[in-house]
């Protein structure tokens, strides 16, 4: 607590003072709680953008936008560590020194404290979440298409983790989570994504090698797979390993259990993409089951795996539901462009049907309903239509 009987004196800034006589080198930052200080202790940076958009305060685990909040009041701050502990009064003020000389005992007990006039605003911290679609866009600039396609110009488009943190104003922890989500690929310390074609080729060869050698898909050894893959992909060992890791869970550092659901999705994508006409569901299910690796005979693929891969509609001509290939990975990453494309394909969407096609673009701090409310109109309960053009 500030001691009673304290004379406050303004310390003039050695720099030019602000219009309100405030010290322009000082400012306030409002933090969420005292616990936040411990987080800042580990690492904290201010990351600004050249385009003048909001700066961010980034710790090792989280990132926050800094929003300026103005006030019409004046703030005067006393920093005890920059004040002496002297309790004598000073006679250097503009008021008459005889005032103080005549104050008697009271005067002797007065403490003099130097104060600073602070700017009448503070920065508020609001939680900022990684824009995964923006991360994908940045990484796609230098997509890895195989060793034969590599060149210096491609490498120059690939950012390091440090430059990604600055570009996206994000913490290292959030970035690493994002890199895992987009299945980012490390090429000599710089980050990118692998082309769909190369990924599919790698996955196909892994399954072919596992099938040819009758390997247990729940206990696949990396070394065995790398020895067994054939074709052009056999020279891309890092790509094969990357593909295996992203479609499995680790049993041990060198052994993986393949995700049967991901195998099924991969096979479905392959079957549907080859067909230009709608696929009757019964016919598709038979083909799909037959295409699954022989090691998964007890597994029956579930059509719910195809929610973000195709559109399902009833066709009276074949008296069955038909599937049309429509992968969400082919949709624009920009939210408004994505919605435009979705409503070009279908005028009215059920919420359950459109949700899988929006998951790629929903931020961590928002829900699918929130993104729908911003970009579409609710026609009736659970049904959405395009917003009229403004």
């Amino acid at each position, binding site marked *: 607590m500030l001691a009673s009987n*304290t004379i*406050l004196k303004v310390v003039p800034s050695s720099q030019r003072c602000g219009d309100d006589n405030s010290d322009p080198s000082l400012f306030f930052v409002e*933090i969420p*709680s005292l616990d936040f200080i411990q987080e800042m202790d580990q690492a904290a940076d201010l990351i600004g953008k050249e385009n003048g958009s909001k700066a961010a305060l980034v710790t090792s685990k989280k990132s926050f936008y800094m929003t300026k909040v103005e006030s019409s009041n004046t703030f005067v701050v006393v920093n005890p*560590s920059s004040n002496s502990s002297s309790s004598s009064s000073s006679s*250097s003020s*503009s008021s008459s020194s005889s005032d103080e000389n005549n104050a008697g005992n009271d005067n002797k007990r007065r403490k003099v404290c130097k104060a600073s006039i602070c700017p009448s605003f503070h920065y508020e911290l609001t939680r900022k979440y990684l824009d995964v679609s923006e991360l994908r866009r940045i990484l796609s600039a230098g997509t890895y298409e195989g060793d034969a396609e590599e060149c210096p110009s491609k490498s120059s488009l690939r950012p390091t983790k440090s430059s990604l943190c600055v570009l996206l104003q994000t913490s290292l922890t959030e970035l690493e989570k994002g890199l895992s989500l987009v299945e980012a690929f490390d090429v000599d310390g710089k980050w990118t994504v692998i082309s769909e074609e190369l990924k599919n080729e790698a996955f196909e060869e892994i399954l072919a090698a596992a099938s040819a050698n009758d390997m247990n898909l729940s206990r696949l050894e990396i070394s065995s797979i790398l020895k067994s893959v054939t074709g052009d992909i056999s020279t891309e060992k890092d790509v094969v390993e990357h593909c295996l890791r992203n479609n499995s869970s680790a049993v041990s550092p060198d052994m993986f259990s393949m995700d049967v659901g991901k195998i099924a999705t991969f096979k479905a994508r392959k079957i549907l993409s080859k067909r230009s006409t709608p696929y009757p569901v019964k016919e598709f299910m038979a083909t799909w089951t037959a295409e699954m690796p022989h090691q998964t005979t007890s597994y029956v693929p579930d059509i719910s795996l195809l929610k973000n891969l195709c559109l399902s509609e009833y066709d009276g001509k074949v008296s069955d539901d038909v599937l049309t290939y429509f992968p969400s990975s082919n949709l624009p990453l920009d939210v408004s462009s994505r919605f435009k494309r979705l409503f070009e394909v279908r005028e009215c969407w059920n919420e359950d049907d459109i949700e899988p096609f929006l998951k790629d673009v929903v931020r961590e701090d928002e829900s699918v309903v929130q993104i729908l409310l911003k970009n579409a109109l609710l026609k009736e309960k659970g049904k959405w239509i395009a917003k009229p053009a403004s």
Partner: protein
Amino acid sequence: MRIPFTLKRSAPSSSSSPSNTTSNVSPNKKSKAASAAPASSVEPATVAGLTKCHAIELNGQLVVPKGRTSEGIETELGLFTMEEGTPTLLVGTHEIKGKIVKLKKPLLLVRKKKSSDDKPLPVEAEGIITEKYLFNGYPKTIMREKH
């Protein structure tokens, strides 16, 4: 552009006297801030290792007389007193009564420095504010004795 944001930790108290109460509060403990140092204590109070600063909020703008800032002259702002838990500020011939307001969220007092070649240096949090003296009342004009 990335600028490091550092925390200026207070030096630990070197006094062995039990009456000098400077203590660092671990942020993991939900206890209240360290008690304020008595007027005669050398070390300032700290909160989570940062110097606890005192903030005074006043309505309107403070106008420092011309010539007192650029010339480096200290100017007396006023006299701060506490009577029965009520803070009072005497600025010139105006007396303003205030109140102590505990902040919902702490404020860090941050200083930015510039090097001689105008490149930004790390910003540093010099202190922390957990409560403020709010003087938003209407000032009362008082007569001060002329000597």
